[in-house]
């Protein structure tokens, strides 16, 4: 916790922030259900997200980045290294997304730039670009299967895997964070309302049974 506190913005400033789904938290809670056929929807706002673009053919650069960030970069396509708190998502052959607790973006960007100094590559803070929608519960895969054409069966997609895909008509980065299953859907903020509507609609057969 102490680590978190040091990076948390001043309370005054934090109170000025507003996440795209902030006013829907009560609705999400009311529309969620626990139990064996349960599924829960929530927003995890303000996560630090830094987009890294690095040519994969420079092992030295990658190693330097990993040292500087204190995190390994996943090399297996669509995989994640790390946990829900600190993680790196493989988004493409030369693209990764660093996830960290809120308020860390400047630090991550500057470390990445230090590692990349005089080398090719880019690191860009995209923390405010997307918000994170969390869908969790025993039937959450059933819910996602109504709106996403990816193979989410545990044999094909499990905890620690991610994919950029379409959910309904929205592009998201889908990240399975737990075996329950639990998913994070990283979505561009302007689409968050639509995504929430879509997921709530898909959940209704389970939560309003």
């Amino acid at each position, binding site marked *: 916790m102490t680590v978190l506190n040091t990076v948390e913005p001043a309370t005054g*400033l934090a109170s000025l922030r507003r996440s795209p789904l902030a006013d829907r938290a009560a609705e999400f809670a009311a529309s969620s259900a626990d139990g064996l056929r349960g599924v829960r929807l929530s927003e995890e706002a303000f996560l630090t997200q830094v987009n890294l673009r690095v040519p994969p053919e420079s092992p030295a650069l990658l190693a330097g980045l990993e040292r500087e960030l204190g995190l390994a970069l996943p090399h297996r396509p669509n995989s994640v290294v790390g946990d829900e708190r600190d993680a790196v998502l493989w988004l493409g052959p030369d693209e990764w997304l660093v996830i960290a607790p809120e308020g860390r973006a400047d630090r991550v960007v500057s470390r990445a730039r230090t590692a990349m100094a005089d080398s090719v590559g*880019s690191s860009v*803070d995209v923390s405010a670009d997307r918000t994170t929608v969390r869908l969790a519960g025993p039937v959450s895969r059933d819910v996602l299967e109504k709106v996403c054409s990816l193979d989410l069966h545990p044999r094909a997609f499990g905890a620690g895997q991610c994919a950029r895909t379409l959910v309904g008509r929205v592009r998201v980065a889908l990240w399975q964070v737990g075996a329950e299953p639990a998913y994070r859907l990283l979505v561009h903020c302007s689409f968050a309302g639509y995504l929430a509507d879509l997921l709530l609609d898909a959940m209704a057969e389970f939560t309003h049974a």
Partner: protein
Amino acid sequence: MTSPNRLDATVRPGRIDRTRRLRFTFDGTELHGHPGDTLASALLAEGRTEVTTSVHRGRPRGIVAADRTEPNALVQLHGDCPEPMLPATRVELRDGLVAESLSGIGWVGDRPDTAVHDKKYVHADVVIVGAGPSGLAAALSAGRSGARVFLVDEQAELGGRLLDGHERIDGAAATDWIARAVRELAEIPEVRVLTRATAVGCYDHDYLLVAEHRTDHLDTVGPHQSQQRLWHVRARRVVLATGAHERPVVFEDNDRPGIMLAAAVRSYLNRHAVLPGRDAVVFTTSDSAYSTALDLLAVGASVPALVDTRPQPPAHLVDQVEAAGGRVHPGSTVISTKGHDRVRGARVTELDEQGCLSGIPYEVDCDLLAVCGGWSPVVHLFGQAGGSLRWDRTAAGFVPESSGTHLPRVIGSARATHDLAGSLAQGLAAGAEAATACGFRIAAPRVPPTSGDRPNSRPRPLWLVPGMTKPPEQWDRHFVDLQRDATVADVWRAIGAGMRSVEHVERYTTISTGQDRGKTSGVNAIGVIADALMVDSPGEVGTTTFRPPYAPVRFALMAGRERGHLHEPVRTTSMHSWHEAAGAEFENVGQWKRPRYYPRPGEDMDAAVQRECRAARTGVAMQDVSTLGRIEIVGSDAPEFLDRVCTSGFAELAVGRARYGMMCGADGMVLDDGVSMRLAADRYLMSTTTGGAAGVLEWLEEWLRTEWSELDVYCTSVTEQWAAVAVVGPRSRDVVARLAPDLDVSSAGFGFMEFRETELYNGIPARISRISFSGELAFEINVARWYGLATWEAVAAAGADHGITPYGAETMHVLRAEKGFVVVGQDTDGTVTPLDLGMDRLVSRHKDFIGKRSFARQDTARTDRKQLVGLLPLERERLLPEGVHLVEPDVPLRPPVPMLGHVTSSYRSAALDRTFALALIRDGRRRIGDVLHAPFEGSSTAVEVTRPVFYDEEGARRDGVEHG
């Protein structure tokens, strides 16, 4: 109170629940049935033989089939969501059902359909379509391997044709074997079984669409329960066990009620305990109808004639039928029927070796004529997937060509293997093989012993029983397609008109274009065509193309949940709630909702826009500009890259400064525009138009990845990382000074097209730039998106005592047009170069860029192209409609009128106190000062051509005036 045609339970129990009685209404009459009935079986039980009249000829028609091949008994369901044209054979009976008969199309309700339709996407190793004996066997062997197996069947129960007969498997009734299979499949975690689910499409790479009926059979349905679900199934191996459809035979008056398919009669007898007639003539070309005859005899019906086209039917079958009291007429055919609202008798005669009629016709009285013209394998899905078919003479049907691995595997009756033992063996083998191919090794299990099997000796197909007298051109009561009322005479007319291909003949005659898509008529039509063309076999005529859907699918099911507010995403900015609360009117820009204007009580759009414009020109105004596209372009080659994609130079731009840039396509036409800032030596932030953001990013990526992969440049979309407020007007400096106390906002300290990183008074980190899309002194405040609303509110508060006015896109358009600033996509349309817009200043002569070479093309280089000009209507209040064309003043307005160009933007200006417009006019710059005419709404408006700048042409207002 029992239904007249319902057999006693001691004779035939049937798969119905006699303890429950269901009431239903058909054509206004209350009737009864039981759970397990279809509407068709209940109607037959109640003695309803005639159920409709035919669509064109008005002839009485009855139920023919027991499955979805039914051509006649289409019904209209009433209820909250009326549904037209359902085959009664596919409507499960439920209490309170209200149906009416249809002749032709039905009707839909006038209220919106409230039923829920949804979709589901699943992936499976092995998908098996059809759960008859072969499909069930395939599911068992594949399921036991641990592979992901998906079994779909369109009936309510698994088992297919086994439910109609008396076969025995493994020493017990086939239904016991089915029950065991169902239990076993239910216990395998990776096996999913769908009933009431029809595979309607089979596409490339083993992709299927399956339409599942989920609630039709239920008495109550929850509000969120989907009535139908469309399953998108991606498989690694597809096994088609789709069975076969029985064909009728084409003879004179072959459409009378009481003429049914033989297997359908058997199905009604055994599955529904319904006897459709007491005295049955059975007419067949093969063995299978003998089972029908035996079942009819077993329940006490008479079979005065079993008419078999074959001169020597299998003796054991003949013996069985005759021992049971029936009479077999070998080497014979039914040539016509008598009766009106139902069949009363059949005329029978002999066939000679060539298949010609011979002997003396005789009549046999009957009230049921059970016909089997042979079996057509259900190869629709195989055909959809690209499989080719061949005519199999032995089976007398089109069967799948042996296929490569990329095509679905077809088993059982669908490949003309009609015997039970063969079907089970093929199924067990195909399931094991498919699972093994997916990496789940398993050997095919032992084939269980069977008895009571369907015999399978060679048929003698007969497409068309000749009429007794007239030539075929006049056989207009020999029905080929009952649903379309199309006859042999129609086919001959088509052939007489020169058609040869089955596809042409079917389109000409409408055969196979009904709701049933020719499931009973298609192959017969091919046979009739083959006869007419005197070719050797139907194989030489060939089939029509099989296209999805196999069975009708509701549009509502295709739409799924993507209706209403889920139809299309609506994108909103972080300040949207404020705009809504302020009563803004919105406009759609792509998927974005942008405020168009903020009307005050009593104001129309014109008044609001005029007020907002005055505020921006004389005081201070603010606009949410968050929707603009933003791309961060990073890398040591970023300066070079921007130089290559933009018409003007960016390599020389100093860090901390911004520049307007334009992008062209390779054709030299304007693609997009925006201001780019240089954040660092190797880092730019490019802005794009709201609508162009995604396209520009793709454009940049395409060049980087396909042409210039050597460049060290990465592009990252940051459109939504930022929220932005434009603060515009002569008083904007005061407002920004209050907002950003650390910032020197003087024109000396903060020059035009510069930006600063700072903190707002409340601590919010901000990047503030001095850019202007209005010609006025203006600032753009960029903050992280989550601070957007707070920042907007802070700007509003800081400007409150100056009367800061929120304005929308409409005002922004007026302000920019007054200055002659173009909007890409409004003032350009893909045929406009920067030079056409008079932007020579922005087109570098010193460097190459995308599109530059196209400026040397003859057509782009000529000087009389359509060019951007201004227009001032001579009547100051006259507003030109956008899009209106301009012509020479003296030209006669008789088509073709030579057009000079069109109005691209047109507004009423508060600053000019008049209307004005921008237009693209041929050779426009040379016409400045001329008067042209804009004909519209029945009159012609005279306009003066001007330079496309109406306000502050010298740019004196850009830096505003210094205050205090």
